[in-house]
């Protein structure tokens, strides 16, 4: 049961992050390859604030989110005027810096030995993990609801115009850099919030959690499901991570030698479905409008 709750919590975290990435990339065209960096700031920020400084959980959650938002704003201000490839590299570099800081700043983070003693947001004894799962589901639904609503309001059209043709949007009086900066900061800040909650799910933090794998998993899930669709991340996570962690691993009787190879097989399988989907459904399983062909 404990494992199922943990695995389900991870799924919901992936869905929440994938939905935020859908907002950043699928809606606005900002190529954030540093998802795990923002998650890491929220995670360790929260962990340090509650375990080292013994702040109340709610205060620590809010502070961790604000710190992540602020750092995203500074990073965004430096890079969001650059083209997509440069943003990709810069965000990836940011995440790498965050990773190494967690390793080297032992006084704060505990380094590779880890940081423990992180409580659940709501302490209801044995059901605390379940309560946290409910909170995570609520947060994910909030993001999904926001993404859904965005398709029908002026702000959604503004973001779409930035993704489609930024100079044209600017020529119509839209302050595109400012809007990108605000939206990037807030959505990245929300990745920090998810990271902070994920810190509670894990109870114990080690730098390895902040390896680039998390970013790639979220990107793969969103690409599989459909980057331009609200439910893209949900579908993507269900057919990639959930398939392994919630179905195959607990229920499929696999021989021990296969079990040992499972993590590698999983990555190979991800690669296979990713290639297949990109070949046959370039916009993901849920699809979406293909950009007009340029002749």
């Amino acid at each position, binding site marked *: 049961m404990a494992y199922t709750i943990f695995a389900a919590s991870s799924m919901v975290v992936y869905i929440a992050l994938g939905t935020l990435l859908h907002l950043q990339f699928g809606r606005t065209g900002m190529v954030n390859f540093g998802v795990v960096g923002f998650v890491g700031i929220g995670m360790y920020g929260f962990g340090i604030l509650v375990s080292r400084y013994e702040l109340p959980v709610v205060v620590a959650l809010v502070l961790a989110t604000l710190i992540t938002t602020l750092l995203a704003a500074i990073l965004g201000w430096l890079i969001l005027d650059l083209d997509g490839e440069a943003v990709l590299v810069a965000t990836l570099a940011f995440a790498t810096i965050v990773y190494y800081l967690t390793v080297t700043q032992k006084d704060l983070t505990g380094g590779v030995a880890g940081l423990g003693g992180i409580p659940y947001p709501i302490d209801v004894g044995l059901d605390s993990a379940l309560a946290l799962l409910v909170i995570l589901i609520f947060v994910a639904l909030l993001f999904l609801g*926001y993404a859904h*609503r*965005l398709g029908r*309001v*002026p*702000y959604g*059209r*503004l973001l*779409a*115009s930035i*993704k*489609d*043709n930024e*100079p*044209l*949007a*600017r*020529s*119509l*009086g*839209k*302050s*595109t850099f400012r*809007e990108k900066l*605000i*939206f990037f900061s*807030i959505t990245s800040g929300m990745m920090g919030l998810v990271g902070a909650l994920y810190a509670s799910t894990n109870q114990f933090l080690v730098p390895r959690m902040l390896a680039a794998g998390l970013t790639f998993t979220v990107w793969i899930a969103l690409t599989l499901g459909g980057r*331009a669709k609200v439910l893209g991340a949900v579908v993507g996570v269900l057919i990639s991570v959930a398939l392994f962690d919630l179905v195959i691993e607990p229920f499929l009787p696999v021989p021990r030698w296969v079990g040992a190879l499972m993590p590698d097989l999983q990555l190979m399988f991800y690669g296979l479905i990713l290639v297949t989907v990109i070949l046959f459904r370039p916009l993901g399983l849920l699809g979406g*409008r293909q*950009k*007009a062909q340029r002749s």
Partner: protein
Amino acid sequence: MESTPSTRPAPRASLVLTDVVKSFGGRTVADIPHLKLGRYGVEGLIGPNGAGKTTVTKLITGAHSLDRGTISYHGPSGVIDLSQLPSHRIARAGVVKSNQVIQDFETLTIRDSLLLAAARPRDERFWYLGRSRTSAELVNDIDGYLEYFRFENPDRHALSAGEKKLLDIIRCLLVKPKFLLLDEPTAGLPQWETDQVKELVRQLGAEGEISILIIEHDLELMWSVCDYVHFMADGKLLLQGTPDEVRSDPTVIEKYLGGGHVEG
């Protein structure tokens, strides 16, 4: 609205280019000591390909930066130095340009594209998830344009080059410009749509609310809609005058219309 004789209408928005120079890779594409635009409702800018016409409009709207010189905009809220402003601020100040090369938002439908252009910043906030508060007047405008240009189904995406071109012009108008720059607005349009654009330009010019500068190679159209014409060649302004003066000038005939030009 009737204006009483005692209230004079506000003067048209105008643009004054002073000592403007722009070069790309050592080649001077625009060198204009002085140019005032907006004395008349509809002015034209003509000249052979590569004369620097589009460059001048791009300098005005901030799509290109100036090497030297100033561009001042005399609008409803006084005089503004455009060379110091980013392009979205220039558009908000009331100077808007349509595009020569087709530009479109690929994922927006025709109606969404127009609603985007009409939307004002207070509606475009990340926390605002309510109904669009675009003013009734602008919604009426959108419906009017959609009908005028006979868009059959505005809830799909623009498909043909003509539709995209018209959409570009309508978007510009929905920003409520005081000074509108039209860069080859009828290039590639079928005849009846060209006539629609021509009629619209003429009407806007006559209403006197906005000043229009139009670049076009279709000279018949230019002679018929423009009150005043500027002639450019090789980055320089060579001649200004009424359409009749310009079309009969020997320099214009030699450099642009060609010696064999036979027209009434």
